[in-house]
């Protein structure tokens, strides 16, 4: 019997409450009249499917009831579903981004063992620097910690691909053959590079991305074995990489074998490579670091001139995301969580109101014998149904929104730009939906059947002080969440304004920029380069509307323009103690073209040719660091050889808009002993009109001077500057949208709370008015209640916001985390929102007819 009762526990509690005794009686009767074994057999045979069926009956009934109830109050249903959809949608999209950029393992075999290797100059504050080919060569020979160690040229190299339809401009890089075994990737067709391909003088070959191969040849298969021209040199396609292969970054479409020519191996100060390696399974990261540390010390001793104080950094490939990119993603996710919380509080509040409004219905159901458990089930079914609808809608919102977040995916990672939406994202959405539905549904559900007595049947508008207070706390929470978002968004808006207001130190309006990377060895003779530059510049300057034009090795905001140590012979001889400056090789008229003011001495001009005295122009800050109290003009420095300082110009933001710590040094284009990496390649044209309108004529001129010369990166300097703030603007747009949604949800919450308060206090309003209160005092009474909530929310939000924005500090760009204007504006907006949300219910109360309201009760 005990066992039978135990089995009955499979049935829902309400069913047992109703029928357990009956079923036991039947069981006893049967045991008396039939064979025990037959009775037990039939019990076992029946009980499992039947219990499931009873559960299903109840669920079906609950669902049917729920759909009917929800249809009866479409306003409530739509508001709740939309609120959940927004919360779940925002969170799912933000999670997809977070997962893609920061959590998901990199798309390579055993990605945990992948590391990058790079130079460090920690005493100089440089945590991650490129290394030189000879250094990499030594690492590869000396190290034992890695299964494979490869290298690639870090700066993307734009090449002109022709010989197959329209010429296209693509980013390429040079990589060493080991990279493929390091990453464990195979081509979809053809082969990857082998160690034979590394030999200097070998055939010109390349690997092609899947997308380029398909667009040029129709399919990956037909591309392999074909040839294309890269900057007019014929290359054979030996393989096509998988579509998802994005190494070292997603912009790279072509890979060529890195070949260590004698010239490359001769120069230990030519920092162009990053190393990538696969750790040996028996070697820990710490052990590898220790080994590389030892190698660094050996190299320092062997090459004191170039390698003094140069260490070797080993970090996991996954960890190469900059802290700022990481923070950008975290901020978006944090804001989404905040929005979800607000949506939850909002829906919870709506449910409380419903429970209160349905007290009569509940009381009736209790009176006719509905079990408390059935009521709880009923309310939970309602909240889960709404949660499910909101979750599905939210998932659709998220899938649609994810592509727009791709700008926030850090470019430093070898992953595609668009976050993938797969089962992980679905699982996350399902989890958030379930957690949300339970969070907002459980309280009201368990509350629903309690304290119901005959009294509620009579006093229909009965209110409970405790739930009133709870609902007020929920609304205060919504307001507080909104204020926190407003403050964070406000501070970031102000930071963006600050960044946009930075004077880069040069003129951007009307400047056209394009790149002509002169190929080697064609342009190895300096006379050939001189002829090209003057041929182009003379004719461009003659174009109508052009006031000035110049060539420079890398245009401003090019992150890969290198830096050099600037010493003073006999004073600062150690290059590692010397200040460093971004180096630019320029043609005459450069300063005039960009409007960079000359402070002292002269500009670089036509007299600075190959065999004239070697000269340099410093930026102001570099001059001050070298000679704090003296005039630098006429002094000798050591930078790319011994040179005389002939001029000082104003500083500019040279590599990144948000980093103004770089100084600059300028050398004449004709006086360079550097590899082709620094040959002036960026043409800058200053015009009075629309910069881009000049592009066709400039292209024609370049084509006339050298018909084979490829042109790339055609853009206005203003666009280059705009791109500097693109991630910030996308982040703000997302954050701004979340804030507006939170703001609307909170306003709906206030409106709902006060509407309900007004409807339950109509009788009180009637009595007050009958006793002489005028309409204005009734209006004031309800508005005051709204403002009280707003003030509560603001007071709660300020310390939270102050705490939260401390984590944003590195994005704030000079804006104080406690900026009073932003806090004031956020508080003011919250007050406006509150008054906006409360005005309608308050007016309704004030417009009431006192007699009618009293009679109605």
């Amino acid at each position, binding site marked *: 019997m005990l066992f039978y009762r135990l089995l009955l526990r499979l*049935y829902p509690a309400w*069913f047992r409450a*109703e*029928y357990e*005794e*009956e*079923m036991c*009686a*039947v*069981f006893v*009767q*049967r045991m008396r009249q039939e064979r025990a074994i037959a009775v037990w057999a*039939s*019990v076992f*045979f*029946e*009980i499992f499917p*039947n*219990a499931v*069926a*009873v559960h299903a*009956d109840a669920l079906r*009934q609950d669902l049917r009831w729920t759909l009917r109830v929800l249809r009866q109050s479409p306003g409530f249903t739509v508001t709740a579903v939309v609120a959940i959809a927004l919360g779940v949608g925002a969170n799912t999209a933000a999670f997809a981004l977070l997962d893609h950029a920061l959590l998901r393992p990199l798309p390579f075999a055993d990605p945990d063992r992948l590391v990058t290797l790079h130079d460090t100059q920690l005493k100089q504050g440089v945590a991650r620097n490129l290394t030189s080919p000879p250094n990499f060569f030594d690492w590869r020979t000396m190290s034992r910690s890695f299964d494979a160690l490869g290298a690639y040229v870090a700066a993307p190299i734009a090449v002109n691909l022709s010989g197959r339809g329209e010429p296209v401009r693509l980013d390429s890089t040079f990589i060493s053959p080991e990279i493929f075994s390091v990453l464990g990737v195979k081509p979809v067709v053809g082969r990857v590079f082998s160690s034979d391909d590394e030999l200097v003088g070998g055939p010109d070959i390349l690997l092609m991305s899947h997308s380029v191969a398909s667009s040029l040849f129709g399919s990956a298969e037909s591309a392999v074995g074909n040839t294309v021209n890269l900057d007019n040199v014929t290359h054979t396609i030996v393989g096509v990489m998988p579509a998802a292969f994005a190494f070292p970054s997603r912009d790279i479409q072509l890979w060529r074998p890195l070949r260590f020519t004698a010239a490359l191996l001769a120069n230990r100060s030519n920092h162009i490579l990053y190393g990538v390696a696969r750790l040996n399974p028996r070697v820990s990261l710490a052990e590898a670091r220790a080994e590389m540390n030892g190698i660094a010390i050996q190299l320092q001793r062997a090459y004191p001139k170039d390698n003094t104080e140069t260490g070797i950094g080993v970090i996991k490939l996954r960890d190469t995301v900059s802290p700022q990119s990481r923070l950008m993603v975290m901020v978006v996710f944090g804001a989404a969580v905040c929005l979800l919380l607000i949506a939850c509080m909002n829906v919870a509040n709506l449910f409380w109101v419903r429970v209160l409004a349905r007290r009569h219905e509940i009381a009736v159901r209790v009176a006719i014998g509905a079990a408390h458990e059935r009521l709880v089930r009923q309310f939970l079914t309602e909240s889960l149904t709404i949660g499910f609808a909101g979750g599905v809608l939210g998932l659709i919102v998220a899938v649609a929104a994810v592509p727009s977040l791709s700008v926030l995916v850090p470019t430093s990672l070898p992953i595609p730009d668009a976050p993938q939406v797969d089962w992980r994202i679905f699982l996350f959405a399902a989890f958030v939906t379930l957690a949300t539905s339970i969070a907002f549904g459980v309280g009201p559900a368990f509350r629903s059947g309690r304290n119901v007595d005959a009294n509620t049947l009579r006093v229909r508008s009965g209110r409970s002080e405790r739930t009133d207070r709870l609902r007020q706390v929920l609304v205060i929470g919504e307001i507080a969440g909104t204020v926190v978002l407003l403050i964070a968004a406000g501070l970031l808006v102000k930071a963006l304004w600050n960044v946009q207001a930075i004077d880069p130190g040069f003129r951007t309006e009307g400047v056209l920029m394009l790149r002509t990377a002169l190929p080697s060895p064609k342009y190895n003779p300096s006379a050939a380069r001189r002829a090209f530059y003057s041929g182009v510049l003379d004719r461009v300057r003659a174009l109508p509307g052009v006031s000035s034009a110049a060539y420079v090795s890398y245009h401003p905001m090019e992150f890969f323009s290198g830096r050099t140590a600037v010493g003073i012979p006999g004073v600062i001889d150690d290059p590692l103690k010397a200040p460093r400056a971004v180096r630019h090789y320029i043609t005459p008229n450069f300063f005039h073209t960009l409007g960079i003011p000359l402070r002292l001495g002269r500009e670089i001009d036509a007299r600075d040719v190959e065999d004239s005295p070697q000269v340099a122009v410093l930026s102001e800050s570099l001059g001050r660091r070298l000679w704090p109290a003296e005039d630098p003009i006429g002094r000798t420095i050591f930078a790319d050889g011994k040179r005389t300082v002939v001029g000082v110009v104003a500083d500019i933001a040279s590599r990144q808009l948000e980093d103004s710590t770089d100084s600059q040094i300028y050398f004449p284009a004709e006086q360079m002993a550097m590899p082709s990496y620094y040959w002036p390649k960026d043409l800058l044209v200053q015009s009075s009109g629309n910069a881009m309108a000049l592009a066709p004529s400039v292209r024609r001129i370049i084509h006339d001077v050298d018909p084979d010369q490829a042109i790339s990166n055609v853009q206005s300097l203003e666009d280059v500057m705009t791109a500097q703030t693109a991630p910030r603007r996308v982040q703000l747009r997302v954050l701004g949208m979340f804030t507006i949604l939170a703001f609307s949800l909170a306003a709906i919450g206030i409106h709902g709370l006060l509407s309900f308060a007004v409807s339950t206090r109509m009788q009180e309003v009637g009595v007050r008015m009958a006793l002489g209160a005028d309409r204005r005092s009734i209006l004031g009474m309800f508005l005051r209640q709204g403002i009280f909530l707003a003030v509560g929310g603001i007071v709660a939000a300020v310390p939270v916001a102050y705490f939260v924005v401390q984590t944003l500090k590195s994005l704030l760009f000079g804006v104080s985390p406690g900026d009073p204007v932003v806090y004031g504006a956020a508080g003011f907006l919250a007050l406006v929102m509150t008054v906006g949300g409360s005005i309608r219910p308050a007016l309704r109360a004030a417009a009431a007819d006192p007699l009618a309201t009293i009679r109605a009760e």
Partner: protein
Amino acid sequence: MDVHSLLPLPPITFHILLALAEEDLHGYAIIQNVAARTGGELKIGAGTLYRSIQRMLDQGLVVETRERPAPADDDERRRYYRITEFGRHVARAEARRLAQLVKFARRSGFVEGKA
């Protein structure tokens, strides 16, 4: 509720209505009645019975009755069920439906006897 919206009745439901046609019965009596009527072929389990009863209560086919038989037969725990007027309507409609079906079957030669 519309009579025809409940048709066709699940066989168990129809058997329970047949069992209750003459007198109010408690659960075990219903089981026995059905078993006797079908020559022991259909033995309803307790769970199946009360799941059906629950649904029939919701549909208004039966009610629980408070009138009890003579004390000697009575057991404190037992609930007795009585067919409602609506339940009789539904049972009759179901019987007509079945009779019609049998008529069709006979015409097609699936059942012995005259059409």
